[in-house]
C-alpha cells in the first residue's frame, strides 16, 4: 500500500483531514518501520515507507505535493537523519518529525535547530502519532501568513503591547513577530501581564532562549539616554529618539520597547525586584528594575550577576556612569535605573540606573535599607532586619546603618558587594559612628577580601565584623584611601578617586542632584560584592563614602564611595577604609548610613553605587551644608582615573 498513497494522489487536505494525510516514513530499522507504518495507518493516514533516506529524498523530489509530512529516524546509515531533515526543509518545506531512541537534550536541540517540527522518542506510541497532523496545519498557516505579510499578527501584538507599530512594514515577518513578541513580552513583564512562552522572560533578556534579539549595549543605551534627555522624558518618542540616536540597524520598535521599559522602571522602582532576578543578566531593564526591587534583587542571584556585570562595566563605563548618572539625575533617579539597558559592557550603568530609581524617591535610609536588603540576599545571614530597608527616616538612620552594616557584612561574606552592605549595615547597627568606623575598616577589609570575589559567594553569611575590618583594612591598602582618614578631605577623594577611578566626579554631580544614587548605590553595593572582585574596592569606597557623608556631607562620602565604587581593582578597598575612617570622624549615624549606603550601592555598581550612594547621601544631607563641601571634594576626587 505504500505505493498507492503515492500514485493515487488523492486529496489529502480534504474534508476528513487529518484522515488521509500522506506521510512518508523513513527508518532503517525494519521492525520500527513496520510498527510505525501500522500505527500511522491506524490513525488513518496514508503511509509510504522506505528504509533509505536517499530513496526518500528521491520520492520527495519527484513530486513535492505527494506528501504532507515526513517522519524520519535520526540514526540512519546512509544519511544522517538531520541532514535529511535539512534537505527536506530546504527543498520541500515540508514538516519533518524526528524519531529517535535517544532523547538527549543535545539531540533534541539539534533536531529543533535543524528545523524539525517535533521530536519523538522510540518506542512510538499511537497517541503521539495521532496529533502529528497539527504540524501540517501549522506549516500551512505559517506559509500563508508569511505571504500575506502578517500585518495582522503584528498589529495584534502591537496592540497588546500597547506600542504603536507604525513601522511595521512587510519586513521579515519572523523578525517582526519576534520583536513584537519580545516587546510584548517585555511590556507584559513589566505589567505582569500574561507572558509569552518565555516564562523566564520576566524582565530578562531572552538572549539565549529565543532567537537573537536586539541587544541594548552600553553604547546604545547611552545614546538612548542622551536622546531621551535631550528630548525630555515627556517628549521622548521612539521615532525622535531613533533619529537622534542615529544608529544603523536600530528600529523604531527597538527603541519603543526600550523606552517603555525605561519608563516603567522609572515608575516602579518597587517592582523592579521582579527584574532583579534577571539583573544578573546584562539586561539593562533588569538593572533598572533592580533598584526598586533591590531588596529582592539582593535576594535574587541575579543581582549577583548584575554586579559582576556591572562591575566590569563600571570600570569601563566610568564615563558612562558619570554621564548617565548626571543624566539620570536630571531625568529622575528612576530613569537612570531604567536606563540600565542591558549593556553588557556598561553594566554599571545598569546598576546605576536601578539604584537611581530606587533611591530617588525613597529616603536615603530607605535606600540603604534596600541595599542592605540586597546584600542580605546574598548572604542569608544578613541581619535581614536591618537589611530590610523600608522607608527610613533619618532617625532610623541608625537602623539603616545597621542594615548597611549588615549589608556590608553580608556582602563581604559573599562578595564584595555583599560586603559593603554588610559593612554598612553592620556599622549602622552596632554604632553610629563608632560602628561605622569599625565597619569601615572591616568593610574595607572585608571588601577587599574574597568577599568581593564573586567566587566567594559561597562564603558563609556569617559576616563578622572582624572580617569586615580586615577587608576594610585591605581596602585601605588598596589605595591611599586609607590615608585619607581625615574627613573627606580632598586628598582623600582625589587620591582615592584617582585610584579608584571612581566616577566620583560623577558622583559628585550626583550628589547635587539627587540622593537617588545613594540608594541605588546601596543596592549596588550588594550585588557588587557578589560579582566583582572589584567590588571590594567599591565596597571600601562605598563604605568610605558613607563614612564621609557621615562626617560631612553625603557628598563627601559619596565621593569616597564613588571612588570606592569605581575601583575596579582591588586596590580600591583601601578607599573604603578611608571612608570608614571618615565616618568615624563624623560619627554621624546618618552619615554612616549614608556612607554605607553609598558603599553598598557602590559595591554593587562599582561605579554606579558610588554615584548612587553619593547622590543618595547628598540627598539625605541636603540639609547639611557639608555636603557642599563634600561635593567639592568629590569633584576633586573625580580625578579618579578610570
Amino acid at each position, binding site marked *: 500500500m505504500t505505493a498507492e498513497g503515492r500514485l493515487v494522489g488523492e486529496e489529502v487536505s480534504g474534508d476528513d483531514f487529518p484522515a488521509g494525510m500522506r506521510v512518508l516514513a523513513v527508518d532503517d530499522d*525494519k521492525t520500527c518501520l513496520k510498527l510505525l507504518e501500522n*500505527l500511522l495507518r491506524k490513525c488513518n493516514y496514508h503511509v509510504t515507507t522506505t528504509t533509505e533516506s536517499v530513496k526518500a529524498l528521491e520520492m520527495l523530489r519527484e513530486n513535492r505535493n505527494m506528501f504532507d509530512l515526513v517522519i524520519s529516524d535520526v*540514526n540512519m546509515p546512509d544519511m544522517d537523519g538531520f541532514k535529511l531533515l535539512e534537505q527536506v526543509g530546504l527543498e520541500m518545506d515540508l514538516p519533518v518529525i524526528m524519531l529517535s531512541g535517544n532523547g538527549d537534550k543535545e539531540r533534541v536541540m539539534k533536531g529543533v535547530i535543524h528545523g524539525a517540527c517535533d521530536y519523538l522518542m522510540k518506542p512510538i506510541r*499511537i497517541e503521539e502519532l495521532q496529533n502529528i497532523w497539527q504540524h501540517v496545519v501549522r506549516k500551512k498557516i505559517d506559509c500563508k501568513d508569511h505571504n500575506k505579510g502578517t500585518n495582522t499578527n503584528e498589529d495584534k501584538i502591537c496592540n497588546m503591547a500597547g506600542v504603536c507599530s507604525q513601522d511595521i512594514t512587510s519586513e521579515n515577518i519572523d523578525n517582526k513577530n519576534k520583536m513584537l513578541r519580545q516587546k510584548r513580552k517585555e511590556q507584559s513583564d513589566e505589567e505582569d501581564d500574561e507572558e509569552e512562552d518565555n516564562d523566564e522572560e520576566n524582565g530578562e533578556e531572552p538572549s539565549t532562549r529565543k532567537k537573537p534579539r536586539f541587544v541594548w549595549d552600553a553604547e546604545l543605551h547611552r545614546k538612548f539616554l542622551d536622546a531621551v534627555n535631550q528630548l525630555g522624558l515627556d517628549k521622548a518618542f521612539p521615532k525622535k529618539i531613533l533619529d537622534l540616536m542615529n544608529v544603523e540597524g536600530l528600529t523604531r520598535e527597538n527603541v519603543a520597547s526600550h523606552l517603555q521599559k525605561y519608563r516603567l522602571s522609572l515608575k516602579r522602582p518597587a517592582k523592579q525586584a521582579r527584574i532583579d532576578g534577571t539583573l544578573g543578566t546584562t539586561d539593562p531593564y533588569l538593572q533598572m528594575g533592580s533598584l526598586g526591587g533591590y531588596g529582592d534583587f539582593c535576594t535574587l542571584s541575579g543581582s549577583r550577576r548584575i554586579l559582576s556585570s556591572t562591575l566590569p562595566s563600571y570600570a569601563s563605563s566610568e564615563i558612562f556612569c558619570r554621564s548617565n548618572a548626571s543624566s539620570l539625575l536630571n531625568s529622575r533617579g528612576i530613569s537612570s535605573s531604567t536606563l540600565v539597558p542591558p549593556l553588557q559592557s556598561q553594566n554599571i550603568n545598569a546598576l546605576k540606573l536601578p539604584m537611581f530609581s530606587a533611591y530617588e524617591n525613597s529616603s536615603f535610609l530607605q535606600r540603604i535599607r534596600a541595599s542592605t536588603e540586597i546584600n542580605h540576599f546574598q548572604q542569608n545571614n544578613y541581619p535581614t532586619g536591618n537589611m530590610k530597608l523600608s522607608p527610613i527616616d533619618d532617625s532610623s538612620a541608625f537602623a539603616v546603618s545597621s542594615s548597611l552594616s549588615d549589608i556590608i557584612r553580608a556582602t563581604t561574606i559573599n562578595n564584595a558587594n555583599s560586603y559593603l552592605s554588610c559593612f554598612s549595615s553592620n556599622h549602622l547597627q552596632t554604632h553610629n559612628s563608632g560602628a561605622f568606623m569599625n565597619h569601615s575598616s572591616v568593610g574595607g577589609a572585608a571588601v577587599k577580601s574574597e568577599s568581593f570575589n564573586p567566587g566567594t559567594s559561597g562564603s558563609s553569611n556569617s559576616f563578622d565584623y572582624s572580617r569586615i575590618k580586615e577587608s576594610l583594612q585591605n581596602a585601605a591598602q588598596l589605595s591611599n584611601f586609607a590615608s585619607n582618614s581625615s574627613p573627606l578631605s580632598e586628598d582623600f577623594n582625589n587620591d582615592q578617586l584617582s585610584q579608584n577611578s571612581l566616577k566620583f566626579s560623577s558622583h559628585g554631580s550626583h550628589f547635587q542632584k539627587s540622593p537617588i544614587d545613594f540608594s541605588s548605590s546601596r543596592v549596588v553595593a550588594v550585588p557588587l560584592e557578589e560579582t566583582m572582585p572589584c567590588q571590594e574596592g567599591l565596597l571600601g569606597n562605598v563604605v568610605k563614602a558613607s563614612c564621609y557623608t557621615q562626617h560631612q556631607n553625603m557628598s563627601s562620602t559619596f565621593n569616597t564611595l564613588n571612588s570606592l565604587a569605581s575601583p575596579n581593582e582591588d586596590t580600591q578597598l583601601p578607599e573604603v577604609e578611608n571612608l570608614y575612617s571618615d565616618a568615624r570622624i563624623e560619627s554621624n549615624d546618618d552619615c554612616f548610613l549614608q556612607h554605607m549606603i553609598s558603599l553598598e550601592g557602590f559595591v554593587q555598581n562599582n561605579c554606579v553605587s558610588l554615584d548612587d550612594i553619593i547622590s543618595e547621601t547628598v540627598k539625605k544631607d541636603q540639609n547639611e551644608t557639608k555636603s557642599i563641601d563634600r561635593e567639592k571634594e568629590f569633584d576633586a576626587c573625580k580625578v579618579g582615573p578610570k
Partner: protein
Amino acid sequence: MYSVALLQRQLVEYTSSLFQEGFLDGQFNQLQLLQDESNPNFVVEVVTLFFEDAERLLNGMEKELGHDNIDFKRVDALVHQLKGSSSSIGAQRVHRVCIAFRNYCEEKNTEGCFKSLQEIKQEYTLVKSKFETLFKVRGWNKSFLPQGVQLLDGE
C-alpha cells in the same frame, strides 16, 4: 479434556506472566492494538521482523567485538539499533541490557561489552522462546486452538 476456558485462562496468565517478569512491557500492548481483522497477523509479523533484525545485529556485534581493534562506535550503532527495535516491540529485558551495553561502548570497556553481549544473547534467546510460546498459545500461528474460539485477552 481441557476446557477451552481453562486454556484461555492459561493463555492469559501466561501473557501476564511475561509482563510481570519483564519480558514484555506496555509497548507490546500497542502492538496488539494494531492487530485487527484487516491486519490479523500484525504482531507475528512485527515480532518476526524483530527476530530477524536482532539476529543480524547480534552477529554484527559479535563480529565487531572479535576484532583486535574494536570499533566501539560501530558496536554502539548496532546496539542502538537493537535497543530501538526491542523497545518498539516491548522486549523490555533486551532493551535494558542494550542500555547497559551502550554505556560500556561509550566507556570503551571491552570487558563490559563482552559481558553485555552475552547477556543480550541470553535475553534474546529467552524472549524469543517466550514469544514463540505465546504465539502458539494464542493461536496466532493458527495451529493450536480450534477455530472459532475467541481468545479472551482483547484480541
